[in-house]
């Protein structure tokens, strides 16, 4: 059996003895493109923190590629939500992407030619190579997001983990970023958390809904039952039947490309 990218068993996690996540179970196969959606405060970010080893679980177990998270996270490329940054921070695109190589180099070690090749490839993948000498502060929100994706890719990860990758970019840029992620998914597993339900459903392979508990069936469809559990009320999208229409196209790759 293939190794699981993420394996979560009976996870309880939260802050100050108050659980935000209750009994979460999730197995992500390699090659998957999973979106976790859910309302604000539903525990999406908490789950991400646990997967990244930034928050200790109260109960339960999380494994990345068969290892505990502190070892396994070296195969994880993390793209944070924070697109806004200190505009005066003196740093160029290239130097930000280079941070993705920190985990590959130890303390006191300089970056080498191998690191530079990985960063170049990552910047070309996200089409930011031409802007590699630009100061970060001069980039648009969408360009910054691409650089953060490049930084994650520079680590040559097997799993890409994204926190609201399109939270602060305009709709046109959002489409670009999802197209990019779909192309990247040919070689890396992708897990992203988001709340723009409508858009992601056209790109991802599987969807889970998170609201303290995880509603996940390993399928690409957002079922009415999942949404009702997650949001505790039927939401507009379901009423309009939009996800199902989108997912019908999802099954036909040629048609999808034409979109």
């Amino acid at each position, binding site marked *: 059996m293939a190794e699981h990218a993420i394996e979560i068993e009976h996870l309880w996690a939260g802050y100050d003895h108050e659980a935000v996540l209750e009994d979460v179970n999730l197995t992500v196969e390699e090659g998957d493109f999973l979106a976790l959606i859910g309302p604000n405060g539903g525990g999406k970010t908490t789950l991400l923190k646990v997967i990244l*080893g930034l928050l200790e679980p109260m109960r339960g177990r999380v494994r990345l590629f068969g290892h505990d998270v502190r070892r396994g996270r070296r195969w994880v490329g993390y793209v944070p939500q924070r697109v806004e940054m200190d505009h005066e*921070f*003196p740093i160029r695109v290239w130097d930000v992407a280079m941070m993705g190589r920190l985990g590959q*180099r130890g*303390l006191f070690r300089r970056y080498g030619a191998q690191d530079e090749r990985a960063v170049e490839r990552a910047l070309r993948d996200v089409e930011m190579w031409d802007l590699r000498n630009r100061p970060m502060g001069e980039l648009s929100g969408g360009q910054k997001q691409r650089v953060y994706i490049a930084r994650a890719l520079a680590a040559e990860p097997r799993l890409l983990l994204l926190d609201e990758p399109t939270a602060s970019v305009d709709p046109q840029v959002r489409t670009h970023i999802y197209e990019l992620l779909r192309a990247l998914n040919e070689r890396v597993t992708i897990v992203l958390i988001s709340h723009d339900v409508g858009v992601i459903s056209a790109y991802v392979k599987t969807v889970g809904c998170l609201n303290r508990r995880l509603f996940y069936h390993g399928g690409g469809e957002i079922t009415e039952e999942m949404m009702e559990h997650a949001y505790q009320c039927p939401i507009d999208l379901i009423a309009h039947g939009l996800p199902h229409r989108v997912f019908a196209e999802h099954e036909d790759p040629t048609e999808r490309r034409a979109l």
Partner: protein
Amino acid sequence: MIEALQYAFMRNALLAGILVSIACGIIGTYVVVNRIVFLSGGIAHAAYGGIGLAYFLGLPPVWGAIGFSLLASLGMGWAQRKTRQRADTLIGVMWAIGMAFGIILLDLTPGYKADLMSYLFGSILAVPTGDLILMAVLDGLILLVVLLLYKELLAISFDETFAAVQNVPVDALYLLLVCLIGLTVVMMMRVVGLIMVIALLTIPAAISVQWVPSLRRAMVLAAGLAILFSVVGLGISYALNLTSGASIIMVAGLAYLASLVGVRWRARKAASRFALTPLQE
């Protein structure tokens, strides 16, 4: 002005200004990009407690200041990282207690305390050779640490969460950085005095990050600016018979205002160019 250099105290003052400026440029840049100016001020004032303690015990004040500033650095650094809401309050309290502790110990110490004012307002004109050696050693230490850990310190300054995920020991490096701030601050007290430490630590770095897009180059530029401000300030203080520390800070402050105007002018120019040729996403 050149004839001023025939005096040994003037040569020492110049050398002290240069040595301190090097530390200032490097460490000040970290202070500015990490937004820990207030914490640095706290360390400087708490270090005054160490000076009081050293006087009380009859030890060299510099050693008291170094010991206390390192303790304050660790305490305040920990508060900044581990307490979510009221880090600034905790730092403010340590700031005040350190200062009060120093003053009370000085009260309890019998005899004349000539050096007291020199720590508040600086005494660059009375820097002994021993202090110059100490400054050079501290510069060497700072340079060594920053050369060895440049990429990690850059990463924790820019995005510490990402650094943590990359298995960088964020907490330990942060405390190391704060301790370097403590050492720098003690050196600077000699030159510009406790009250104006923050100005010389932050102004050159604040100017340079406005003009160069790389942390490394910002450090070099900030060190250069700090040297320039020290030398010009010293010259003015010599020529007009003014307090040296205050003269240095006034020069730095005016340069900062000029830089702010320059940055706005540059932004306006960029905006008009942007209007003519719209940039593509």
